[in-house]
């Protein structure tokens, strides 16, 4: 297993820092060789930047990847947007020498050069492939008897041409990681549906974006779960803060707690819900937090 650098992105360090802390606790607890990726920027966000100017998107993404290349580490992301942007950019650059030349001409202005020597990983596929559900199960100190609505999010698994993660219609690798902690991953209608945040839709067309989230939350509520578990802070924000916005706009109240998998795993490994910021979400539920404590 190649050592990794931890790519934080924007939303985790700047809106849900508990996920950042949880991730670091988990990486330490599983003896994974990781380091901060000092000086990284926005990935940049694929929905807007990739839509605006391809060369700019690739150049900023390449700078982030080069920082990790310089440390001889793969890039570990904890956000589907960052994973999507950096994976797709890395793939484009590795397969398009003319584009790489153009990007490197820009990078030379800041004394950098993209080589293509680092891979981009996402914590969920990384834990699934490099550690595996059995070893994750062995690391559990405090099994979590919870009914969970799992949300993969889109860019963890799609576009599949640039991932090696099997089916996009009915994947199971994330469910296995959740069930390794003692929880049950409950099926619900349209489980693989988008949360509605991506592609610049949430940032510019909030009402439409929330209609998609409302439908998703409705299906999750019908399944009768204890919480939602996700792999992405933008989905996390949409499903957590989105519940506040949806209540204001449509009067639909769900009150379903939302956790990133890093948080759930850290709690199962013995850390308290407050240690990893579960109480800093917009939707909080003291009864649920007590249950997490065991």
């Amino acid at each position: 297993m190649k050592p990794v650098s931890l790519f934080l992105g924007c939303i985790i360090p700047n809106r849900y820092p508990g996920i950042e802390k949880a991730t670091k606790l988990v990486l330490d607890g599983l003896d994974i060789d990781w380091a901060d990726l000092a000086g990284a920027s926005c990935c940049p966000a694929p929905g807007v930047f990739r839509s605006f100017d391809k060369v700019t998107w690739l150049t900023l993404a390449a700078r982030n990847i080069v920082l990790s290349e310089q440390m001889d580490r793969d890039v570990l992301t904890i956000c589907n947007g960052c994973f999507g942007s950096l994976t797709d950019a890395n793939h484009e650059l590795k397969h398009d020498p003319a584009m790489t030349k153009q990007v490197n001409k820009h990078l030379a202005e800041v004394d950098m050069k993209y080589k293509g020597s680092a891979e981009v990983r996402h914590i969920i596929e990384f834990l699934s492939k490099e550690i595996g559900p059995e070893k994750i199960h062995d690391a559990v100190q405090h099994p979590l008897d919870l009914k969970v609505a799992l949300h993969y999010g889109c860019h963890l698994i799609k576009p599949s041409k640039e991932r090696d993660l099997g089916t996009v219609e009915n994947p199971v690798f994330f469910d296995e990681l959740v069930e390794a902690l003692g929880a049950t991953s409950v099926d619900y209608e349209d489980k693989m549906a988008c949360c509605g945040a991506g592609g610049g839709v949430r940032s510019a067309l909030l009402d439409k974006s929330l209609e998609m989230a409302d439908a998703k939350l409705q299906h999750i509520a019908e399944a009768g779960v204890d919480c939602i578990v996700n792999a992405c802070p933008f989905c996390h924000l949409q499903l957590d803060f989105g519940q506040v916005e949806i209540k204001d706009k449509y009067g639909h109240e769900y009150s379903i707690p939302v956790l990133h998998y890093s948080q759930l795993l850290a709690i199962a490994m013995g850390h308290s819900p407050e240690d990893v910021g579960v109480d800093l979400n917009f939707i909080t539920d003291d009864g649920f937090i007590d249950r997490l404590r065991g």
Partner: protein
Amino acid sequence: MTKEPVKLLEDEGLTFLTCMQCGTCTGSCPSGRYTSLNTRRIVLSARRNKDVYHDENLWMCTTCYQCQERCPRGIKIVDGILALRTESVHMGLMLPDHRKVAGLVVDKGHAVPINDANKEKRKELGMDELPETVHKYPEALDQVKKLLEVTGFVQLVLEEEKDKSEEGQ
């Protein structure tokens, strides 16, 4: 000079011309259930004329890639939509909120920068007030700013602002 959509897509190694209008894309689209986005029509329109660049539905795609995964002809629909959006932006069409997000990255290096409330949350968790990103390293932010200048991105965003203000007068 604005390119014909068919030519633009060809230059990106993409084509919509093999589409048989089966509608699998529209049937698979999570956005289309709640918005006026009809992916099949975008694909059809992009084969015919430049009006597609002005179609606001281009911006209702969440880029979930479900249509692209399921397309029986293997058309890279989302990659194509992103290419069409890019041309549209270079024509000066950018949603106001997207311009703001672009401006945040130009200024701060983050699309979602830190604020006081979240500095407090970080401290409450026993973490440094600022993360190990461009927020903590000014020289790293300078690199990002330099790159956004040399790629022409700053100009792209600012020029369009100028056009917009002229329209408003």
